[in-house]
């Protein structure tokens, strides 16, 4: 675009530092919030007030903050579960199913060791909680391994497989917890039996200990991709399976491995939501809601560009906004779905602003005063 002797031009970026990416993301968030204020204005609400309410409830309120943190842990685990196969160029659309089977795995441990008998059963948390974590990880990994195996051995599209496994897992949970199912709540109600008090996950200042798990996994993954042989092999396969094969990397083992790892992390997300979040402690009737929420892991992973550390602030932001948005919707008597709409708008602006990861706008003096008109002069 030319204006007088000056020109606005798009230039390709050759490099992008972490700081530039962070600044672009922050600008995107500001832009997205500004855009969404139209919704508040249309409803006669001062957007500044609304945002203040959202953020203060999500991040500074004694009731809101623990909710935000639980949501954040869940999102971060789902994001990590997406990122691991993503770095291998594969799409895990099945965190939903993997977390269901992970939850079933955790509850199966309890079931086998007598946890169903009574809420006050006296079980040893030092043994049972680790076992439940392992059960959850194995469950998620087992389901995802199917997709990894089919991809590695027969090159069957992993998106389709993980997606369809979600449905199988959904109905499997239903079979297990509804009337007649082995994990059925003694009182019926279409939910699972409750966790005995003795094995509920310990809380640290009201936040489940799984936060260390989630942050630890993000750190380990960052190290894995940046420094290790395995990480190198995964990334090489992700950019070019043919080149990876040439470099001696097994094109069977890598898809299998990343799906096992991703599935295990998604399984832990299942443990977290159904066995560690205060006030839940069972596979709830509306368990489908958490499955849907798992899809935000995909978007968080894409916004973080597959970087496990960048995923931390992204998951925290979206965890907070989903809690704060829901709160403000109720408090200000606004329409249903405000929180989802807010998340959606922000995600779209964040993804759209990634354009500036590749291009920058520069303002240059052309020196020559001319206009582009017609095909030739």
């Amino acid at each position, binding site marked *: 675009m030319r204006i007088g002797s000056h020109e606005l031009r798009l230039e390709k970026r*050759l490099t992008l530092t972490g700081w530039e990416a962070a600044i672009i993301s922050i600008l995107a968030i500001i832009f997205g919030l500004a855009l969404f204020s139209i919704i508040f204005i249309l409803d006669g609400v001062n957007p500044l007030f609304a945002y203040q309410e959202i953020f203060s409830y999500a991040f500074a309120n004694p009731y809101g903050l623990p909710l935000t943190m639980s949501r954040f842990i869940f999102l971060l685990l789902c994001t990590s579960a997406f990122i691991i196969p993503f770095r291998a160029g594969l799409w895990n659309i099945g965190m939903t199913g993997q977390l269901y089977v992970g939850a079933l795995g955790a509850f199966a441990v309890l079931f086998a060791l007598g946890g169903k008998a009574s809420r006050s059963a006296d079980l040893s948390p030092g043994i049972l909680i680790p076992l439940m974590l392992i059960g959850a990880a194995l469950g998620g990994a087992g389901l995802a391994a199917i997709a990894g195996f089919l991809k590695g051995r027969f090159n069957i599209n992993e998106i389709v497989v993980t997606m369809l496994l979600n449905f199988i897992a959904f109905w499997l949970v239903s079979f297990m917890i509804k009337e007649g199912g082995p994990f059925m709540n003694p009182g019926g109600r279409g939910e699972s039996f409750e966790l005995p008090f003795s094995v509920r996950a310990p809380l640290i200042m009201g936040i489940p200990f799984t936060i260390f798990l989630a942050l630890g996994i993000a750190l380990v993954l960052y190290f894995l991709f940046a420094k290790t042989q395995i990480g190198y092999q995964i990334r090489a396969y992700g950019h070019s399976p*043919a080149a990876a094969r*040439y470099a001696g990397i097994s094109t069977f083992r890598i898809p299998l491995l990343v799906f096992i790892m991703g599935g295990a992390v998604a399984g832990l997300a299942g443990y977290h939501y159904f066995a560690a979040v205060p006030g839940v402690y069972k596979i709830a009737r509306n368990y489908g809601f958490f499955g849907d929420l798992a899809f935000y892991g995909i978007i968080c992973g894409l916004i973080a560009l597959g970087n496990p550390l960048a995923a931390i602030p992204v998951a925290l932001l979206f965890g907070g906004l989903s809690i704060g948005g829901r709160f403000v919707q109720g408090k200000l008597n606004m329409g249903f779905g405000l929180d989802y709409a807010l998340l959606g708008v922000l995600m779209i602006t964040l993804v759209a602003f990634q354009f500036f990861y590749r291009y920058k706008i520069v303002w240059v003096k052309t020196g020559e005063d001319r*206009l582009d008109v017609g095909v030739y002069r």
Partner: protein
Amino acid sequence: MSHSILGKSQEEKQVQKGLLDGIKRGETVLEARGITKRFPGVVANDHIDFEIRAGEIHAILGENGAGKTTLMNILFGLYQPDEGEVIVGGKEVKFRSPLDAIDLGIGMVHQNRKLVSAHTVIENIVLGHPRAGKILNLKRTGGEINELCERYGFKIDLRAKVWQLSEGEKQVVEILKALYRGAKVLILDEPTSALAPPETKKLLASIEAMATDELAIVPFITHKLPIVLAISDRVTVLRRGKVTARSETACVTEKSLAKEMVGREVIFRLERANVETGKPILQVENLSALSDKGFLALEGVSFSVREGEIFGIAGVSGNGQHELAEVLAGLRKAQGGKVILGGKDITHSSCLERWQMGLGYIPSERVEVGSIGDFSLVENIAMNFYFDANFSQRGIVDYGNIRKLTEEIVSEYNVAAPSPDTKAKNLSGGNLQKLILARVLSRRPRLLIANLPTQGLDVGATEFVRNKLMEAKKEKAGILLISEDLDEVLSVSDWVAPIYEGKFTGIIPGEEAKRESVGAMMAGSRPPLFLPPVGGGEGGQET
């Protein structure tokens, strides 16, 4: 931009269409004046002046990265020049997109084919043609296209699907597409780089036929000097974005062109180094393998390579040599037979095990297999070192050490790259090949398999690669060289094995191999001279 995006006025269209009508032989049709194009960090074209006349074949010559393709993309409207003018039929034009150029009668055949592979030849040709209308009149169109084919000597089945075609045939489709759109200027970007020798010959004949026709005007971009000399009328040489020579082809020699192109004298003939050969490093017994499409591409090949010798396989691509290279590298399963490396049977070893045992493989697909475009140079070098105990301990890759190695390679091999963190996709073809070669040679392989190591490289880079192969030979590596370039095989190999339809048609000592006889054997003939004595095995296998 203030003009309408939707299109030109009726009047404008008329003027444009007419620009190249009625042009006579020898008149200037397309001219570039002072074309300058800058990309971040480089000036790809620096005030280039250049013109093409009707009925001439004008070669544009230059090393990789000299700016040939950029210039042609500007003439075709893919890029807008930063400075300078493009003049068609005496009028200055400003292309907004290739559509404008096509409307004016400029056609371009890209190095990378741009065809719909699931469609037939005729569908690809009419795709986007304004006259094709809404309902395809395939009968009439087919007739017109067949006429074009006859006139210029193309042979092609119009109803074949594009995926079934060879590279040469795909190129013919691209040329037909441009001609059918009414191209009067045809820009061919490195048209022979993917072609086998017989296909090249056919193409050159067609190009000459087009040039004798009043309307066909054919600039020609290549770095293959013999082709330039054989076919072009005039030649323009580019070096680092500038025109360094402009001449009638009759007034230049291969040597003088190479000098202008590279900027220094180039040695064409390599002295075959005399190295005392050691024990056999590779023994192949009766090896066979399937192609990607599932038929037997390699049928029972036997040979051996000793330390310090170059075993050259000459053949037109698609005769099983690619499958052979992949089986040896562990990237393709052997259907039968044995591969023995340094006395050990590796027929069923994995690719990684072979690397660790001292096999080095330079693949012909540099971009798709030999490197990872989105990886930095350091990470690309790591492809052959991430598993090496000197560069990785207890599962942790020592990127610091690999970076040092990368810096050494970049300076020793003169890889033109701003830093070790540059992404490999930003390297030119020649530099990428240097990087791959250096990476593999840094492992000091006992057996080196080089599949088309100089294909598509310019004169300077080719010389460099061949010298490096010679150095490796002097260091007692056994080398298996696969090449389509007969001169290359003949000039460096200690043994020459022409391959045809999955079998060697002979194995000849390098000094005795003659161009004519080996050429004939590449095409399948087995002259009596090379038949084994009565009672011998297949081919003239050395023992």
